[in-house]
């Protein structure tokens, strides 16, 4: 059992690396990319008993291998920090991006695990072929409640389409960090924000130790 999961995760990592390296990933349209990645990750979650029973390490690993390469975390961090970003040094920017990335991956992993049993509806993309900034819309259909909408703000880069924001049910993840980030930057500076994010990530990873959910 364990070995088959390891093999699956290794396979996913390989596939992600291949996608990144190959030109195919660059040419894939943004809506097709979102669909491929979502379906692949969901099918892995569905066939993995460990992830279903709450193995957070495994699902975080899956997200890191499969989803993370398609996000522009530098852009996400810049937007979330706002004005303070311009005053940060290159080193601070790197460390901040790294911590914010860790936090977002954990959150995304929980959300995906919660929704993996539902039906996905991939909306047709309304964009011209020349567009370099588009919104890809996905909806999660569930009985008895309004569908949950997930909109990915995506930008065309030299290495393919990259998401710079995720809007869940009308709530922009990146915009939602603006107030708390700017409060911390005003009181404790950029280094203070990095420290706060580090502390948050450490407390989260402690609660992910094996044996706990």
């Amino acid at each position: 059992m364990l070995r088959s999961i390891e093999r699956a995760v290794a396979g996913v990592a390989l596939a992600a690396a291949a996608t990144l390296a190959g030109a195919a990933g660059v040419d894939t349209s943004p809506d097709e990319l979102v669909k491929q990645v979502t379906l692949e990750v969901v099918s892995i979650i569905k066939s993995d008993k460990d992830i279903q029973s709450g193995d957070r390490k495994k699902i975080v690993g899956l997200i890191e291998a499969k989803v993370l390469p398609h996000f522009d975390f530098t852009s996400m961090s810049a937007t979330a920090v706002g004005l303070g970003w311009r005053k940060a040094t290159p080193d601070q920017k790197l460390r901040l991006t790294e911590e914010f990335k860790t936090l977002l991956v954990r959150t995304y992993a929980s959300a995906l695990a919660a929704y993996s049993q539902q039906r996905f509806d991939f909306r047709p993309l309304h964009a011209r072929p020349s567009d370099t900034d588009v919104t890809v819309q996905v909806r999660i259909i569930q009985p008895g409640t309004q569908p949950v909408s997930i909109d990915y703000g995506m930008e065309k880069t030299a290495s393919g389409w990259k998401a710079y924001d995720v809007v869940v049910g009308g709530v922009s993840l990146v915009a939602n960090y603006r107030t708390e980030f700017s409060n911390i930057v005003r009181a404790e500076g950029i280094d203070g924000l990095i420290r706060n994010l580090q502390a948050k990530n450490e407390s989260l990873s402690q609660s992910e130790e094996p044996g706990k959910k």
Partner: protein
Amino acid sequence: MLPTPVRNGVRNFFSNVADLFIGANNLLQGKPEEALTDWMRFAFNTTFGVVGIADWATDMGLEKHNEDFGQTFGRWGVGSGPYIVLPFLGPSTARDSVGTVFDMHFDPVSNHDPVDERNAAIALRITSQRADLLEASRLLEQASLDPYLFVRDAYLQRRRSLIYDGRPPREPLSRANPPAGE
């Protein structure tokens, strides 16, 4: 904790009752087609879905909507007013609190007679909603450095999106996004 099929049935039942009232709000907001969908959902689920325990209307492509009086007032141009956290009910604004009073007044479950059945139904509905909320609030707490600010901003963003049915005018917040040709 109730087993999942029971939980879904309870959620669907109250969701079905709410569709009547969601349709009324859609009508008040000048959206007769959406109102018609809501009432068709109610008709199908009440009969074929056995008093609403199964939500077959969703499978048939009749989409569930999310409307209440707070959104109707917002649609009519009433501003949100200050953000407040209500005891038991959680995040709200001045406008949405007034909306909630109207919601309760017109709620079929709260108006049900006899009183003991009504109270049992209200208690069951609160239990069902709490179970759904627990998952979401765990996620929010995990994601935020300052849960109060995070929940406040998420609530305000969410309500704004709901008032415009998921297509709010773009704020100059993130980036200039070209309209996606809709």
